[in-house]
């Protein structure tokens, strides 16, 4: 799929069918994530692909998680790794950007293979960390809900590109 088409067709899906998703397809999403740029190429991320009853448990403590997605990708930042290899700026700033870019890669790849996603930040970090038994220093930063879309919303209003751009030197 053309990248521009994927960018423009991606929506935040909050209504999923209960279709199961092949593990191979989900692997393609993870593959897309690892090709994201990363500050100092530290790649301080880990991705927990979750299905089954853990999805329900995480959903219980995630007010922003809507619909009934069959799969979740919990994108985690390894703060210890980020700090050890890149210092405070990596732990506090770059690693946050890194996981966001990786997540966007996954969302765009999902469009390419016919899946829907929604990025969720409204979840209780302590609860998710506990439910997934995450190691010390690993912080759940974003959840991506993944499934076959049942309802695709209309595109939201976007700010005009002229409003947000200043062309300097033209």
């Amino acid at each position, binding site marked *: 799929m053309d990248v521009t088409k994927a960018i423009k067709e991606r929506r935040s899906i909050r209504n999923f069918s209960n279709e199961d998703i092949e593990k191979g397809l989900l692997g393609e999403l993870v593959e897309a994530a690892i090709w994201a740029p990363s500050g100092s190429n530290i790649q301080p991320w880990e991705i927990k692909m979750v299905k089954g009853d853990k999805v329900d448990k995480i959903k*219980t*403590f995630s*007010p922003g998680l809507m619909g009934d997605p069959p799969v979740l990708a919990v994108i985690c930042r390894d703060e210890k790794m980020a700090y050890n290899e890149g210092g405070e700026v990596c732990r506090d700033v770059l690693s946050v950007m890194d996981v966001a870019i990786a997540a966007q890669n996954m969302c765009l790849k999902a469009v390419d293979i016919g899946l829907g996603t929604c990025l969720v930040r409204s979840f*209780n970090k302590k609860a998710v960390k506990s439910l997934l038994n995450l190691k010390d220093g690993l912080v759940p930063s974003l959840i991506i809900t993944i499934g076959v879309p049942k309802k695709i919303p209309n595109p*939201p209003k976007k700010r005009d590109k002229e409003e947000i751009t200043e062309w300097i030197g033209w």
Partner: protein
Amino acid sequence: MDRMVGDDIMDDGYFNLICYIATSARGCVEEPKMYGPFRLIDTIDRLIEVMDKRNESNEFYNKLQGKIQNKKYSVMHDEEEFINFLDEVVEMLVEKKK
């Protein structure tokens, strides 16, 4: 006598709803201000879902839930539409109470 003991409470929709409300309360400390109203109205939707599963709902609640499900996500793209929708929900409740 306790109606539920041990792990039975986990299968009770009210338990999940309580988890949702508590987690929302914590989240609202730092989330955008419109998330508060959204979580409250979403709680009504979830409460009616629990009532429905327990055969405790009725036509009015189902109609209310339908309205909420149709418009609650307007908070994501049109704040004014969302606030008008909240007004409509209150109006619907007032009419019922009259």
